[in-house]
């Protein structure tokens, strides 16, 4: 098996010159927003909670930006035909790209986290933060990666699914219950309540649930890449 590590530098360059730009913009906007929130006075706790939400959604936004089109963009343009005549495995090639995307998400989220930590004088960054962020990227980034192996509208579908999940969460918090279809869909979506970056480190069943979900979608994405055709039968 030949690893595509020889190509990692070019992938990092493409990431910086492509999704890296909107990711940087999002990071700067989130950092500016959190740096301007009032931290003292009667609204202090609410401000802290708002910053935590901003941090979560920044990480999710960065994840969507870096994983959207991860596979589907190449297939839509036909680039894969030239790429995979070279001695390289498609699953390993895209896994490497996905991992580099994870590093970029870590960088952006850490910057926003650092701003929040400095504002509230709390030790936000650390192993717990890293573990939470890794779980979030594994689950959300893994899902978009999987969607990207089967549809060109992966990021749009991911946004719709996450919006659905947010709506379900809100409905639940208002005491409403979802129907059987909603429950099935909910089980297929990332366990978002377990993925808040500013919460304590997950453990036990929660950790197993989040890890299991993320590993399942990631492995499914790699399996699809192993078995899907690398060219289209355009005539059917």
């Amino acid at each position: 098996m030949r690893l595509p590590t020889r190509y990692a530098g070019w992938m990092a360059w493409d990431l910086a010159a492509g999704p890296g730009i909107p990711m940087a913009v999002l990071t700067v906007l989130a950092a500016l927003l959190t740096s301007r929130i009032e931290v003292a006075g009667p609204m202090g706790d609410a401000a802290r909670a708002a910053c935590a939400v901003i941090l979560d959604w920044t990480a999710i936004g960065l994840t969507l930006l870096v994983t959207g089109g991860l596979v589907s963009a190449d297939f839509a343009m036909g680039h894969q035909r030239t790429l995979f005549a070279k001695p390289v495995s498609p699953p390993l090639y895209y896994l490497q790209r996905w991992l580099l995307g994870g590093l970029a998400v870590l960088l952006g989220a850490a910057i926003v986290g650092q701003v929040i930590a400095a504002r509230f004088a709390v030790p936000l960054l650390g192993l717990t933060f890293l573990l939470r962020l890794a779980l979030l990227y594994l689950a959300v980034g893994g899902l978009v990666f999987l969607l990207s192996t089967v549809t060109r509208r992966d990021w749009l579908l991911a946004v719709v699914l996450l919006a659905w999940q947010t709506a379900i969460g809100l409905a639940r918090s208002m005491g409403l219950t979802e129907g059987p279809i909603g429950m099935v869909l909910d089980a297929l979506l990332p366990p978002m309540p377990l993925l808040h970056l500013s919460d304590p480190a997950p453990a036990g069943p929660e950790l197993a649930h989040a890890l299991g979900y993320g590993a399942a979608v990631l492995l499914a994405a790699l399996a699809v890449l192993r078995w899907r055709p690398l060219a289209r039968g355009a005539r059917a």
Partner: protein
Amino acid sequence: MIELQGLSKTYRSLLGTRVVPALDDLTLTLARGEVVGVAGPNGAGKTTLLSLLLGYLSPSRGTLRIEGFAPRAWIEQHGAGYLAELVAIPGHWSVPSALRRYATLAGVPPGRVAERVDALLDGFGLAEQGGKRVRELSKGNLQRLGLAQALAADSDFVVLDEPTHGLDPIWTQRFRDVVRDLRRPSRLILIASHNLDELERLADRVLILHQGRLERIVTAGAAGTPLPGVEVAYRLALAAPHPALARAFPGAEAVDGRAGEWRIRGELTALNRGVADLIGAGAVVTAFAPEESRLESEFRAAVGDVR
């Protein structure tokens, strides 16, 4: 090197309501050292065959092995030099960086990438395009970039799909030299093309596909030699009209728009006798050439008049 046994490919729509057979029951062996042409009308299954050979598609029936391995496994280990029918390279890459990337992916050692890329830029006349993005290239230059990336590494399996599409006559000629230089005992070269003249010049064997079936295989050694006893069509050109023409070739037809040229038909030895009679009668023959090559005749016979 490559064994195809009863290879078939059928495309199905998502719900299976539409079924299109693309290749049907191909059995064939392709050996190292060969240049093999693949010809056929549009939709004959040429690109499907190449996609199966590269492991991009899986067969619906039959088997395909490269040195005993499934194509994908072999390609991921050794790589192939592949030029796609439609060259698709990200438009924002610069020309040298595209070649550096593909050379790196193809396994050229890091210390030799720059040297290899310089050789490719020079060899394919792309040095002057070094400052351009891929999206800024003309069709011909993009095709040359596609060829250059296909040959970035020293692969023993080269697959070229419509390689001269978009090339000007000079580069079409140079392409033939490139293929001749690529020939070596350990390498198999496959060329799919609509250009029969090109295949006739380059290939040892030409596979003629029609509606997914391998209709016939034409070997190059005999490609220019009409079969004895078979009527062939030739063009005859005279420096000036001569009364002996009607005697030597009673059925000669003037070629529309070509003054002094006639189309003559018959068995080759009979045509030669006619030409000798003409010359003996004082006519000056300026050209005597087949109207179509053996490959063209075989192609027409295999596929008929495809419209």
